[in-house]
């Protein structure tokens, strides 16, 4: 019984997905399609199909990086809603280097673009960081507002100075082919950006788990007064956290350009920065779990559009189901095993058993 219940708890995330899909199937039925086929296609399309899985990986790259850009400042108690804007500025910087700095060997040029992208994101993040550190201005609102500024600025750049001459739509010229990121799966759009994301996640995990810097960030978040007392410069940590996060988000934008889009488009990010927030929180702010949650969300996205195409239901249904899935998964994760009534009951039961064991041992001796 105990074991069974523990298993239920362990699998609660999966169960939640099932529950959400179950409710979603009502919508699918209402839309006149067969839920089983629909879901079959979704899963198959996202994870088992060569092309579909490639799409999953391709979507995962910006999601994971944006997620990490949210996780890191949150360790220091700072909320970065601005990954979206940092993605834009990062992509802009990278594209500028890609288009206007000629004559470099490919790999070096890619490196330089990535550096520029990271720098762009970091600089954009520096604004809220400085305002927060030295003026105590709420970083949530500043990062949020800066997203719109970045969006419009990139829109201006690709519609004006950087626009490809004669293009039907605002976008920049294509970057040289030597700058295309290597592909993970041949002939697909799955590019190496996701690998960089995974590596960053692993490094972050190590630093959070064992690094003194991770502890400094934690301390700043948990008790800034104690942090000062411990000799930690709260201001400096706010700035460093934001700079690194901005750089990571900037990389997300860079890899979108170098790995997938090959040009800078107007309004290209479509909310990856905001998706990053979901990734971060579904992962419970753990960089390792962010890999899982980004994969999950990316799969859901990729699979959902494949399912929509294959089964022919309208996107509105899919959107509603995505909301349900996130909602249910979030609920399930909130049930910390130990904090629930069931968990408490189980523990009490174990204690009683231990007491009984102890008694019988006493009697025997």
């Amino acid at each position, binding site marked *: 019984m105990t074991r069974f219940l523990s298993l239920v708890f362990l699998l609660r995330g999966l169960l939640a997905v099932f529950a959400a899909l179950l409710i979603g199937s009502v919508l699918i039925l209402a839309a006149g399609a067969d839920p089983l086929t629909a879901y079959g296609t979704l899963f198959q399309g996202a994870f088992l199909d060569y092309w579909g899985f490639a799409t999953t990986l391709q979507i995962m790259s910006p999601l994971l990086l944006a997620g990490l850009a949210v996780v890191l400042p949150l360790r220091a108690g700072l909320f970065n809603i601005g990954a979206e804007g940092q993605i834009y500025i990062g992509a802009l910087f990278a594209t500028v280097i890609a288009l206007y700095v000629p004559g470099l060997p490919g790999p070096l040029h890619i490196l330089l673009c990535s550096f520029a992208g990271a720098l762009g994101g970091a600089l954009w993040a520096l604004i809220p960081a400085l305002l927060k550190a030295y003026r105590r201005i709420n970083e949530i609102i500043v990062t949020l507002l800066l997203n719109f500024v970045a969006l419009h600025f990139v829109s201006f750049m690709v519609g004006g100075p950087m626009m490809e001459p*004669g293009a039907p739509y605002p976008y920049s010229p294509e970057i040289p082919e030597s700058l295309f990121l290597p592909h993970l799966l041949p002939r697909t759009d799955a590019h190496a950006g996701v690998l960089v994301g995974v590596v960053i996640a692993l490094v972050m995990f190590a630093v959070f788990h064992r690094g003194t810097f991770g502890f400094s960030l934690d301390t700043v978040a948990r008790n800034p007064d104690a942090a000062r007392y411990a000799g930690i410069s709260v201001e400096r940590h706010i700035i460093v956290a934001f700079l690194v996060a901005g750089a990571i988000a900037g990389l997300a934008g860079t890899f979108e350009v170098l790995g997938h889009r090959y040009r800078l488009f107007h309004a290209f990010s479509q909310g990856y920065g905001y998706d990053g927030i979901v990734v971060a929180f579904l992962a419970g702010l753990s960089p390792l779990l962010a890999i899982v949650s980004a994969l999950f969300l990316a799969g859901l996205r990729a699979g959902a559009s494949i399912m929509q195409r294959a089964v022919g239901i309208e996107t509105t249904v899919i959107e509603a189901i995505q909301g349900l899935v996130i909602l249910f998964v979030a609920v399930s994760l909130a049930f910390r095993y130990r904090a629930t009534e069931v968990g408490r009951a189980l523990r009490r039961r174990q204690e009683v058993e231990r007491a009984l064991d102890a008694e019988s041992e006493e009697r025997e001796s």
Partner: protein
Amino acid sequence: QDFRAAVVLPGSITDQSFNQVVYEGLVKAKERLGIEVAFSEKVKQADQVSAMSDYARRGYDVVIGAGGEFTAAAERVARQNPDAMVVVINGAPTEGIATFNYNNPHFGYVLGYVTGRMSETGNAGIVGGQEFKAFLDLVEGFRKGWAAGGATGEAMVTYTDDWDDVAKAKEATLNLINQGADVVMPYLDNGSVGVIQAAEESGIWVAGLFADLGKSVPETNLASTVLDFSEATAQAIQMAHEGTLERKNYEFDVGSKAGYLGTLHSSVPEEVRAEVEAIIAEMQAGTFEM
């Protein structure tokens, strides 16, 4: 018969505007030709390539991107899938794909001319979602027509930055009206409704571009051209079905089956109607110079 056609749409198929019309073209083709069709709506820009290549890989014979913003993606998909026929409706001429286009300056000119002839204040307002080539071409034509029609003021442009925000489109229009515009023209998706409402409430004219507003708001509609993307879409599919579709640009001028002058308001005098007819005839003859 296993000919299959797919359309990828940026917006919602119920927007009463571009997306809905293209979608209707797909349905039309299905009925006419008895073929299998599929569509993806609300496809974000980042997913354009994967959506189109997915269809191409799964053996769809023709894959259509709805709108100029698909041009770059379509080009790539065509490169990667040489077998598939990739089409962009309202896209710029591009190598490797078929594009179906309207002579935007001409359509703009015709609308500008009629409304410019009728305007009392001499000012027009155009509400757009974003800046892009097809729109700018149209505006340029409109302005020339507007001046040629004898209007003395300006044709002002405002961008709402959101194709679907009805409330903002309405406010933008009210502002244009307040600046003296007595003719407004929407170039939006869901947002068009807001422009029409503002015109109705302020008792000024609206000019329709895509759909014949003379049918839905006959009182307010001064002039409409019809860019019948549904016909364009259906034609594209039909040509692909027949095997006559080439990877080149097809352009519709005013007065074709897929794009023509719609209803003019009953108060538009005969002489004006005659002038427009003459202009359109010149356009069709290819002798028209703006």
